[in-house]
């Protein structure tokens, strides 16, 4: 059952502007939950909403509910630094992340919702001859896997990021770097809202402020969820609840190879355009881009203390800010505007977990670590495929939970050598 929606266009803007803005349909409906669905997606962030959208669009499953304990995109989808890229090392990872990037490239048109994708390029800066060797290895791997990549010289790095510290006494001198021109940023809220609008239009029920408190398990099979709004039944349930994957897995009776850590990010006060690309330094671990509003959006590594507190801790904040000021001395004049953190699922090999769970009927999309935002389209696509067909998509096959017993890990922390 599809729902009507307004088509967004310049013409629609003009028409509504002239007629008092009264003709817009709500972007998505807020129905009361039914007692049963064909499929339930737990988690109304980017991955969950994308899953619902692709269940409806790719597989014709429209009797679907998305259940979210808070508001849409209020978890890590609303807390990340909006970078999209596919500069990974292993073929399995490149297939996964480049599929996501290709979907992002067509997403505004597909969803009829401007996700403000800006493919401004990203440079991973190397600071020694050894790091240049590793960078060349990564560029070669990316090129062999069919993804755009270029090994930048010092001059090329300073051309795309002229404010970087190029002084002879720099603690981290610039030797060059890895450039991916198709990388960039997208508007994080728009990705969640666009998928929500698309899914709702195709008939999906989006239910906010409804927390899943337990699973209904009958004869060893997952048959639904108990929620704060009562029991809701379905034979296929997808879990897209990054940060809280272990908490829900425990309710379903199994453990995951996941640590929950806080990943913090911050923005400076807004300034005029100073940086039109994304920069990550291998030396400081800090990465930065400038938002359309002019704020510098930056972050770094994880707070390496297992945590469910959605706030950053001072020692790492200091390290990240120090890194930024070392990379861009001029930014030392700026004031911090906001600082926050999201709770991310960290897996030993820094690769996601996609596949069936130990509980039949329950499917997993978790373990994206610090890089879940860039993977939203592919995470949704793969989980939808799993839920609709009961089996893996070719791309998600290597990322099953069974890899931790077979030993076929996909160690991107060692492979691509960049922050996750």
């Amino acid at each position, binding site marked *: 059952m599809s729902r009507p929606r307004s088509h967004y266009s310049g013409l629609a803007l003009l028409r509504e502007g002239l007629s008092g803005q009264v003709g817009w349909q709500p972007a998505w409906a807020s129905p009361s939950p039914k007692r049963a669905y064909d499929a339930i997606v737990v988690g109304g962030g980017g991955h969950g909403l994308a899953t619902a959208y692709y269940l409806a669009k790719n597989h014709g499953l429209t009797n679907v509910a998305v259940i979210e304990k808070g508001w849409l995109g209020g978890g890590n989808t609303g807390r990340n630094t909006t970078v999209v890229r596919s500069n990974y090392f292993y073929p399995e990872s490149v297939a996964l992340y480049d599929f996501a990037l290709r979907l992002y490239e067509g997403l505004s048109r597909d969803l009829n919702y401007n996700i403000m994708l800006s493919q401004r390029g990203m440079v991973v800066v190397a600071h020694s001859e050894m790091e240049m060797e590793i960078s060349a290895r990564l560029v070669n791997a990316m090129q062999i896997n069919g993804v755009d990549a270029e090994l930048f010289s010092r001059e090329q790095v300073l051309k795309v990021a002229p404010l970087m510290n190029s002084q002879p006494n720099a603690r981290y001198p610039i030797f060059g770097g890895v450039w991916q021109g198709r990388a960039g940023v997208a508007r994080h809220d728009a990705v969640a809202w666009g998928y929500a609008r698309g899914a709702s239009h195709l008939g999906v029920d989006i239910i906010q402020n409804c927390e899943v408190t337990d699973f209904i398990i009958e004869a060893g099979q997952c048959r639904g969820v108990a929620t704060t709004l009562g029991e809701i039944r379905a034979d296929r349930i997808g879990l897209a609840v990054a940060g*809280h994957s*272990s908490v829900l897995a425990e309710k379903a009776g199994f453990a995951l*190879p*996941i*640590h929950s850590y806080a990943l913090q990010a911050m923005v400076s006060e807004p300034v005029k355009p100073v940086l039109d690309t994304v920069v990550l330094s291998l030396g400081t671990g800090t990465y930065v881009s400038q938002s359309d509003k002019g704020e510098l959006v930056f972050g770094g590594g994880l707070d390496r203390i297992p945590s*469910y*507190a959605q706030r950053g801790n001072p*020692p790492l904040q200091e390290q990240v800010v120090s890194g930024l000021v070392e990379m861009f001395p001029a930014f030392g004049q700026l004031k911090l505007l906001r600082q926050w953190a999201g709770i991310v699922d960290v897996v030993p090999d820094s690769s996601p977990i996609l596949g069936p769970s130990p509980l039949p009927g329950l499917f997993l999309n978790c373990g994206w670590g610090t890089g879940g935002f860039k993977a939203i389209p592919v995470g949704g696509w793969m989980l939808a495929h799993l839920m609709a067909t009961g089996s893996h998509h070719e791309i998600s096959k290597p990322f099953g939970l069974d890899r*931790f*017993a077979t030993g076929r890990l996909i160690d991107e922390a060692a492979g691509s050598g960049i922050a996750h």
Partner: protein
Amino acid sequence: MHLITCPFCGPRDETEFRYGAEAGKQRGTAEASAEGWSRYLYGQRNPKGETREIWLHLACGEFFLLERNTVSHAIHRTQGLRREDRA
């Protein structure tokens, strides 16, 4: 900034410490199945709330037990792991 009490050195700055692992894991025998070994190596309770963990004081190299809350970050207790500490 947190102060964490090393059982050997006393209260020190949090930056001197490192999280090691969840406490209470039992290593399997040589006959352990692949799944059992995987559970030991990679499985985590990863609790939201109260937790017991093994931490390391980087300055002195002492491993110890730390009880804390993963939501409030409150630290309740630390205890040495030596036989006499546990007695």
